C-alpha cells in the first residue's frame, strides 16, 4: 500500500479541510461554522501539544494534529460539554486531543487506496520525529480564533516503531 494522496484530484476542495470541518461541527461545536482556514501569519505557538495516529504498513502514513495546550483545554471542554470555568484534567486533555486526531485520521485513511490498520492515538508535548521530505500535506486551521494544524506524513517502518 502507499500513503499517497493527490489533493488536486479533489476538485479544488481540500478533503482534509472537509473532514476537519465535519469533525468539529459534529463532535466539538455541535454546529458548523467554527472552523476555517487560518489567514495571515500564524502566531508563535506556546506550549504545543501533538496528537497523531499512524496508518500501518510498509509505506504507511501519519496524521498529526498540533495545537497549543490552551486550545486543547478548550477542545476538551467542548467535547465533554463542560463550562468555561470547569477544571479539566491532563488525562482528559490527552484523551480528547487523541480522539480528535483518531477521528480525523480514520476519515483521512478512507481517502487512501488500500490502507493498512490505524494505530491507537498518541499524544505528547514533543513533536514526533518526521522528515521534511515526507510531508504530504499541511493545513492550518482557525478554530474560534485559535490556530490548529493538521499535517499528513509519509512514514516508513522505522518511524512507526519509534
Amino acid at each position: 500500500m502507499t500513503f499517497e494522496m493527490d489533493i488536486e484530484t479533489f476538485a479544488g476542495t481540500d478533503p482534509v479541510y472537509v473532514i476537519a470541518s465535519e469533525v468539529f461541527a459534529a463532535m466539538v461545536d455541535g454546529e458548523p461554522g467554527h472552523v476555517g482556514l487560518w489567514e495571515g501569519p500564524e502566531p508563535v505557538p506556546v506550549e504545543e501539544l501533538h496528537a497523531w495516529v499512524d496508518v500501518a504498513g510498509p509505506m504507511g502514513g501519519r496524521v498529526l494534529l498540533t495545537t497549543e495546550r490552551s486550545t486543547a483545554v478548550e477542545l476538551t471542554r467542548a467535547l465533554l460539554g463542560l463550562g468555561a470555568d470547569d477544571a479539566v484534567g491532563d488525562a482528559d486533555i490527552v484523551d480528547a486531543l487523541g480522539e480528535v486526531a483518531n477521528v480525523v485520521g480514520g476519515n483521512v485513511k478512507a481517502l487512501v487506496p488500500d490502507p493498512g490498520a490505524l494505530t491507537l492515538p498518541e499524544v505528547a508535548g514533543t513533536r514526533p520525529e518526521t522528515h521534511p521530505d515526507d510531508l504530504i500535506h499541511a493545513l492550518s486551521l482557525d478554530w474560534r480564533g485559535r490556530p490548529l494544524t493538521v499535517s499528513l506524513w509519509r512514514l516508513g517502518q522505522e518511524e512507526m516503531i519509534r
Partner: protein
Amino acid sequence: MKVLVADDSRVMRQIVIRTLRQAGYDWWEISEAADGRAAYEAVLADPPALVLSDWNMPEMTGMELLQALRAAGVDVPFAFVTSEGSTQMRAQAEAAGALFLIAKPFTADIFRETIDPYLE
C-alpha cells in the same frame, strides 16, 4: 433497555452517550466499558439488549470482542461506532454479525436513522 457502550476513550464514551440522549434514547440504561476485554466480561455478567462498540481498542478490539462473544454462544445484538467507515470495514462488520456500523463523526440524526429500524 440496557445498552453497553465500549470505547477506550472516556471522552468518546461521553460523546456517544450524549448523542444517544439527543437522538431520543434517554430511556436507555447505558453502562460503559473501557476496552474490549472489560466489555466482554460485562456482557457475560449481565447481557445488555445492545452493545455499541468502538473498533480499535487496546486489550481486545471491537472485532475480537464480537468474535469472542459469538464463540461463547452469546448472541447479543452488536454494532460498531468507529472512526473508520470504509466499505471494507462495513463488509467485515456485517460478515461477523454486526447489525450496523456508525462512522465517527456522527450526529444525533445519524444515530436515529441507523438505530430506529432495529428497535421496531
